């Protein structure tokens, strides 16, 4: 365990150094960190161990597919290729000087223009890797269930079974109620997807996939769609005619409730993105201290803090997966819950009681 940790930290340190040497000259921690938490067209495992990934572009020239290594010459310097140029982790159309082509947008700002970028970037590659891992793990577990039917779980099965049962009993059943079953596939998939990707992101050289807003956006959007499309009469009733609220308040209540539909998944999106990205930034900052102070004395301290942070991040990886799943389940629960028998919420003069009096 200790050896693995030391190895881990060494590799992390090396990749930090690599970033430094790549930038050349003065060490810029901000640049190094944003490079690490951002996306990339190559997968930089360690200094010199670089996997170029396929670039897929769609724009003026139609569909273009080539390896990202084409953007580098033999001296590892960036060069334009095929009318495209790579700058700051983005691909733009190249002009005659080999610089990104620019245009003036509606606000009067100059901005570079580029094609639509569907490249298999580092994040996408990491996504595929995590999917492979998910399939490997859960198909084998499903196989184990059919193989020793009705028997006690064993091996990987017995590690994941309590988690699956926990998601079913303590997340789905308690928050959704009797209709929990239809949400189980989504909840299980989203939990393990986030958890696996959080852990992969903690590996040295790993991608910051769950700390990317596009990924969390898609996940939150799915939760939103599932909530809205499963919303029953009382769910919409609570939004457009909140029980216990006088009718004249509707012009205020309805916009607030409608905004509420969107703020919930929005918070899911930001929470996951921010937590994972912040964790990466903290660990990288701690390592940057060594290079900022340029002192070997700061090393052990920095490593100790980073080790502590790494353990914390292992916990956060699980926690964030849990929170995302739990909150999704709560939103689903709100959408499918039957409110009819406690509409008045204990207030005797709710709308139904008032109608009964007249």
């Amino acid at each position, binding site marked *: 365990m200790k050896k693995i940790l030391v190895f881990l930290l060494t590799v992390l340190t090396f990749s930090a150094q690599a970033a430094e040497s790549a930038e050349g000259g003065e060490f810029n921690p901000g640049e190094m960190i944003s490079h690490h938490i951002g*996306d990339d067209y190559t997968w930089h495992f360690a200094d010199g161990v670089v996997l170029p990934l396929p670039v897929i572009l769609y724009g003026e020239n139609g569909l273009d597919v080539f390896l990202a290594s084409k953007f580098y010459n033999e001296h590892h310097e960036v060069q334009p290729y095929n009318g495209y140029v790579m700058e700051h982790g983005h691909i733009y159309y190249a002009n005659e000087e080999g610089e990104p082509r620019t245009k003036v947008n509606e606000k009067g700002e100059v901005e570079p223009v580029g094609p639509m970028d569907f490249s298999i970037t580092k994040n996408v590659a990491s996504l595929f890797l995590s999917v492979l891992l998910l399939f490997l793990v859960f*198909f084998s577990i*499903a196989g184990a269930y*059919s193989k020793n039917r*009705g028997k006690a779980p064993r091996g990987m099965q017995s590690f994941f079974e309590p988690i699956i049962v926990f998601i*079913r009993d303590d997340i789905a059943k308690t928050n959704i109620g009797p209709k929990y079953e239809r949400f189980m596939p989504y909840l299980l998939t989203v939990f393990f997807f986030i958890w696996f990707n959080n852990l992969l992101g903690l590996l040295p050289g790993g991608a910051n996939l769950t700390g990317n807003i596009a990924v969390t956006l898609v996940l939150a959007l799915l939760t939103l769609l599932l909530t809205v499309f499963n919303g029953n009469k009382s769910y919409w009733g609570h939004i457009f005619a909140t029980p216990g609220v006088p009718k004249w308040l509707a012009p205020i209540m309805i916009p607030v409730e409608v905004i509420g539909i969107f703020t919930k998944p929005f918070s899911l999106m930001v929470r996951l993105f921010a937590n994972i990205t912040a964790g990466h930034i903290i660990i990288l900052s701690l390592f940057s201290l060594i290079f900022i102070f340029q002192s070997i004395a700061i090393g052990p301290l920095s490593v100790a803090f980073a080790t502590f942070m790494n353990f914390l991040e292992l916990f956060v990886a699980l926690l964030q997966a849990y929170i995302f799943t739990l909150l999704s389940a709560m939103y689903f629960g709100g959408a499918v819950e039957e409110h009819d028998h406690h509409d008045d919420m204990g207030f005797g003069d709710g709308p139904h009681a008032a109608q009964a009096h007249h």
Partner: protein
Amino acid sequence: MQLVTPGIGLLFWQTITFLVVLFLLSKFAWKPIMKALREREDNIDAALTMAEKAKLEMQALKADNERLLTEARAERDRILKDATDAATTLVEGARTKANEEGQRMIEQARVSIQNEKKAALTEVKNLAATLSIDIAEKLLRRELQDEQAQRALVQSYLQDTHLS
């Protein structure tokens, strides 16, 4: 700013990949796993219920046995008591009968003694009468041997008898 601007590439790949993962895992992993889990839980539930039932049955059986034993014991006690009672009654009856018989015999004896006594007395009386008459005859015969005496007697009778 770049950090919070979702890129179209990753949006595209994430959407497609996640939906595929959701579909495949639901079909080939979650469905069989959830089914197996439910089956196993049902089995365990059924086994527990059965064990509980068996326990109850055992208890019922034991209670039944206990009851039978108690009943048998009560039956035995009852039979014993009956037998004792019967014996007592028998003895009592025999004694009463014997007593009655004795009493009856005594009574009979007494009656017969009485009768005998009466008969004897009658006999004695008769005998005494006969004897008296005989004696009287003998006496009279001796008295009335002379004429005078007879006359005197007749006279006395006549005097006693008031002619009317």
